[in-house]
């Protein structure tokens, strides 16, 4: 590749080859986006982790390129969001064409007042490289490259992991094993577990090209374009003047033939014209799958990311949901490991993330059914929608070139305390229990955005002088501490005070003076009240940690 050279990370001979090492609290298998996010989260919580990866570098090829707002917000908490945003290409607008005519335009973030855009496009290798850099800054993260897992033996009180290195094999014992080894998940197979679902009968060519162009930074999707008749195509900008182009090929295409430059070039020439100046960086031919494991938790072995669930790529719901898996898992495992929450809290990881996976699979399956109709009548309706969409607004809403990743609202989670006060807004966008926190611009000591103040630990957000100094001090001293952040009003001793200078926090949280919101360490709302009451907050924290 012209624009990127894969780093080669150092392999160090592990001490366990010479003598059995100590039992590790957490071992993570796979140093992809999901495994690395998990490692940083555990490291930031002071839990030492060993990360095992079979090769010595980041992703070969750009692979996952669209990182969604929620994933970026999680990376902000992990200390590497800005790196990704600075290098990546932010975008909010998507356009859908039928032949050469624009039929539909969508803006995924139509309102200002959010730190992060709807999406940042960045090649997976850059993304992983930044996460590796961040992991190396955090204490207690032992990244072991050239370490291939060849056996996994679960026990009631831990897991033995057999690791092959260039110098031989050794066994690593751990309390908890987090498996992030991707869609083919060798570990899943070693344990005889399956991910069930469907494979779509279609093939797609991905070509990354290097090209200087003033094309807008938008997602462009074509049905039946003049340069690639009867199929679809997608154009996306990435960092370093690299452009991602997807060509739908159909099920009968020969994947080996289609990967050859002499087959790819005419397709690109037809699209970009005879005079365009570009070079192919990387190309791959792939098929889609939508499937998931029945359960993501198997005792002390916990699956996350593509190892647990796979979706077709058109909604950018793969890596983004995997990062949300680890966001959901890390705080729960920390509480269980430290004895402050019962083991069953980890079952809620399974409940919440299988729910999210099902939502992703549903959306992804619907998009794929639209892009790759499975029957004649399905194709007829698809074409009918596209033909009506040119003229009629209602049909544009039916055009489905991918429903792009948004976080699941965990409204049915057993960790939520249902609203007691009936007057909270409940419509779309409302911060009902289970919602990931909405961002808003603020002025305060630790950053310019509301999300800078939420997460990591439990956080109580009080509007106005909702929580007095006694409440603040009491919550800080609890076994599961809760910090208090106060929006506007006279500062209460011990609370962090921020100003909602544009009034957007008040608006987005439907807040009155006195309203309080309780956030989990992963920035999801788990309870809210119109008035602060210490026993109620404590009860809600107990509920959110499986302690009741």
């Amino acid at each position: 590749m012209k624009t990127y050279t894969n780093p080669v990370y150092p392999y160090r001979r592990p001490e366990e080859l010479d003598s059995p090492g100590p039992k590790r609290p957490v071992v993570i298998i796979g140093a992809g986006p999901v495994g690395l996010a998990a490692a940083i989260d555990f490291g930031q919580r002071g839990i030492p982790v060993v990360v095992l990866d079979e090769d010595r570098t980041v992703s070969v090829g750009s692979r996952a390129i669209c990182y969604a707002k929620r994933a970026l917000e999680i990376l902000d908490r992990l200390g590497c969001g800005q790196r990704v945003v600075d290098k990546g290409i932010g975008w909010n607008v998507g356009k859908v064409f039928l032949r050469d005519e624009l039929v539909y335009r969508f803006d995924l973030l139509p309102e200002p007042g959010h730190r992060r855009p709807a999406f940042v496009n960045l090649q997976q290798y850059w993304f992983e490289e930044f996460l590796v850099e961040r992991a190396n800054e955090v204490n207690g993260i032992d990244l072991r490259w050239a370490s291939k897992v060849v056996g996994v033996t679960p026990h009631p009180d831990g897991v033995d992991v057999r690791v092959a290195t260039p110098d031989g094999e050794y066994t690593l014992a751990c309390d908890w094993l987090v498996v992030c080894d991707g869609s083919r998940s060798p570990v899943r197979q070693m344990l005889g577990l399956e991910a069930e679902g469907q494979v779509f009968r279609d093939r797609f060519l991905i070509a990354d090209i290097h090209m200087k162009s003033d094309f807008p930074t938008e997602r462009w999707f074509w049905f039946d374009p003049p340069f690639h008749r009867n199929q679809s195509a997608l154009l996306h900008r990435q960092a370093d003047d690299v452009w991602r182009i997807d060509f739908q090929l159909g099920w009968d295409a020969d994947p080996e033939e289609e990967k050859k430059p002499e087959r790819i070039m005419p397709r690109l020439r037809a699209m970009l014209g005879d005079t365009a100046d570009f070079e192919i960086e990387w190309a791959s031919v792939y098929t889609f799958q939508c499937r998931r494991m029945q359960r993501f938790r198997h005792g002390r072995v916990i699956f996350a990311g593509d190892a647990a669930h796979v979706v077709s790529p058109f909604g950018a719901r793969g890596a983004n949901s995997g990062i949300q898996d680890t966001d959901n898992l890390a705080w729960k495992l920390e509480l269980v490991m430290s004895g402050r929450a019962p083991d069953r809290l980890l079952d809620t990881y399974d409940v919440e993330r299988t729910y999210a996976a099902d939502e992703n699979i549903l959306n992804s399956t619907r998009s794929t059914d639209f892009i790759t109709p499975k029957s004649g009548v399905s194709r007829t309706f698809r074409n009918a929608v596209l033909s009506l969409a040119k003229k009629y607004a209602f049909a544009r809403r039916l055009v489905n070139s991918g429903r792009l990743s948004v976080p699941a609202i965990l409204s049915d989670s057993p960790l939520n305390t249902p609203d007691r006060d009936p007057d909270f807004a409940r419509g779309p966008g409302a911060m009902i229990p289970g919602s990931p926190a909405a961002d808003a611009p603020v002025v305060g000591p630790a950053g310019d955005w509301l999300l800078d103040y939420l997460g990591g630990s439990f956080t109580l957000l009080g509007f106005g002088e909702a929580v007095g100094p006694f409440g603040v001090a009491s919550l800080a001293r609890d076994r599961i501490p809760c910090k208090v952040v106060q929006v506007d009003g006279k500062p209460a001793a011990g609370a962090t005070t921020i100003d909602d200078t544009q009034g957007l926090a008040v608006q987005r949280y439907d807040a009155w003076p006195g309203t309080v919101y309780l956030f989990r360490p992963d920035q999801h709302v788990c309870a809210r009240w119109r008035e602060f009451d210490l026993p109620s907050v404590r009860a809600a924290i107990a509920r959110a940690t499986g302690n009741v």
Partner: protein
Amino acid sequence: MAALNTEPNLSSPDDFYERLIATHRGLSDEDSALVNAKLVLLLANHIGDAGILAQAMAAARDGVATESRGESP
């Protein structure tokens, strides 16, 4: 939930039927299928009510063999 109206509701049934057939005049089966699909979508949007649409789909499917070729619904 509102019920699908299956009582006579067309002011001039024969005129409607003639127009429906005429809409397809001169079309290949494939193009007719497209026109029908567009018609379904236009009418579905006009009706809007998901419950009514579900009843209409069920009524349309009723009595049509379930073991016919192709994908299950």
